[in-house]
């Protein structure tokens, strides 16, 4: 027994020494490395991490044909898991990651992102001017938006008595929709309806406001069917739920009786972005890839196939008008979208939101 104790002590000492060396998460110098604009890209390769179904299946082939290098596509299911992988220090093996805006902001604050070399991404000009002024990254210093949208209510027009118009319809549900509504679990979006109903900002760090929001959320919990971030579309289709809190791109409006509405109190503006990791050994290829995505024909795959809105003016102008007719959300001008509040990382206050979500989920 005593023979083993030294082993345990030794490993703790070793671990402490390693911790001091690894320096995981400490902010490092974020000056851009010098890149070679005429580097031979065929000698590089690219690994990207993205959500499943968010890019064309033949993307590697397209990239190879136009740019000459191999692309590997890794998939992640949530922002949270890819964040943990990227922040654990060291080289994750990923060159370009697709993460939502506020997470890109956090990655940059930890010194993990390569500042973008604008001369290598001329297609930035294709973006709407507003897309370069989003609050989490003004001027596209470290990220380029890939898709954007808002959060609202997705509902069955045939199963609700009155179409919803306000966040109140979710948080103080009418009798006919009780037990048939869902809310999201991710803490920022869990709090959003309550914050908006209170007239507060989605980026508020005021504890009193957050507490008031918590009260609203606790009050509605017994009337909810479930908290759901992923399968609310299926629930609507089956009729198990009749009204759900949803992101616009996820709401299956292709179904006959499913409609999407942004409540009158307003909502957020989320953006999924592309970022280049500082640890990448293929930075020129990464920049070329981002530039490639911003081509109208490439970026246009997104609205045409998965019905998400993109911040690329050149691409949106080329979207098939028939498509815009069938999906009014797609046709909405960006000015509508930009009424929403852009989500930013809240620094230390993030833990207040995690606490909010813990308290709401734990309440019985």
């Amino acid at each position, binding site marked *: *027994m005593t023979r083993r104790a030294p082993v345990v002590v030794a490993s703790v000492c070793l671990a402490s020494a390693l911790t001091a060396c690894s320096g995981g998460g400490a902010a490092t110098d974020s000056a851009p490395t010098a890149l070679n604009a005429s580097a031979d890209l065929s000698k590089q390769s690219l*690994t990207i991490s993205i959500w*499943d179904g968010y890019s064309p299946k033949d993307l590697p082939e397209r990239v190879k044909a136009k740019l000459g290098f191999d692309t590997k596509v890794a998939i992640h299911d949530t922002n949270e898991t890819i964040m943990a992988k990227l922040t*654990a*220090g*060291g080289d994750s093996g990923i060159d370009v990651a697709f993460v939502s805006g506020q997470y890109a902001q956090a990655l940059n604050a930890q010194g993990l992102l390569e500042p973008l070399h604008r001369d290598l991404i001329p297609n930035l000009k294709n973006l709407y001017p507003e897309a370069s002024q989003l609050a989490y990254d003004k001027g596209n210093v470290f990220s380029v938006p890939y898709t954007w949208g808002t959060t609202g209510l997705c509902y069955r027009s045939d199963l609700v008595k009155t179409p919803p118009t306000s966040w109140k319809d979710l948080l103080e549900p009418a009798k006919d929709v009780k037990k048939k509504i869902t809310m999201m679990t991710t803490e920022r979006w869990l709090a959003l309806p309550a914050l908006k109903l209170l007239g507060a900002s989605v980026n508020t760090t005021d504890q009193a406001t957050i507490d008031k929001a918590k009260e609203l959320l606790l009050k509605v919990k017994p009337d909810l069917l479930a908290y759901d971030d992923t399968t609310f579309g299926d629930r609507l289709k089956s009729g198990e739920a009749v009204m759900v809190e949803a992101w616009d791109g996820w709401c299956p409006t292709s179904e006959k009786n499913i409609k999407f509405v942004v409540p009158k109190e307003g909502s957020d503006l989320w953006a999924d972005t592309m970022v280049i990791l500082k640890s990448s050994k293929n930075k020129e290829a990464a920049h070329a890839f981002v530039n490639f995505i911003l081509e109208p024909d490439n970026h246009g795959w997104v609205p045409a196939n998965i019905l998400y809105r993109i911040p690329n003016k050149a691409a949106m102008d080329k979207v098939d008008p028939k498509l815009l007719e069938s999906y009014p959300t797609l046709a909405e001008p960006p000015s509508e979208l930009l009424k929403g509040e852009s989500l930013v990382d809240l620094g230390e206050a993030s833990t207040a939101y995690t606490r909010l979500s813990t308290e709401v989920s734990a309440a019985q």
Partner: protein
Amino acid sequence: MVRSRHGWLRLPFWLTYLFLYAPIVVLVVMSFNRNKSPYTWGGFSLDWYGRLAENDSIRTGLVNTLIVAFGSTVLSTVLGTLLAVGLARHTRSRLLDALSTLPAILPDLVIAIGLLVFYSTIKLTLGLHSVLIAHTVFGMAFVTAVVRARLSGMDTSLEEASRDLGAAPLTTFVKITLPTLAPGIVAGALLAFTLSLDEFVIAFFTAAPSEPTLPIVIYSMVRFGVTPEINALATLLLAVSFTVVIVAQRLTRLTEALR
């Protein structure tokens, strides 16, 4: 006569298997449903199996998972069995007992993040090997525990007799101890294999982004709901595993008969 004594045990026995296979029946049926939604039957169809054959990422994931599962099971079983014997025969330390089972009680996220940070500190490039090592860590704990359960209070007279007759410890181990332990080793290995096959959290963090295991591929696809394509995969996996087991059974009986 022995049968009737166990009559009342039959109920939980069959209930267990019914419980274990109820959702399996559902997913097999769903894999043949033309409709994507499980709530409406759209007619019998093999479409999803066709889609499955074309899905590269699933194929890669499956191969990677099998490599990791077999590799980590072999390593876990060897290390774990030795450890169990050592704990039972060569020490009375409860601290060591607890230490050997520690990986089984650690939250998987802790193991996952701990190993990722460790790998990055020693600058180990990620790959299937990094997942294999991670899976061996907890696989070992399960093998050790299961084999220990068998060793506990086991009759040591045969082993002692063998030693008294002059056999070297290694011979005693191989010829006497191991065969008696066999059912425990098989149960432990089976457990380690099963756990590795379907493990997501640790695999996600310790795998290279370009070499995912099957659970990683499937979890990441869940964004748009479970498609019948995945149910088709599960059904195929079941059919193949079942066949392999039956064949292996027949083979062992054949070799025994031939001895």
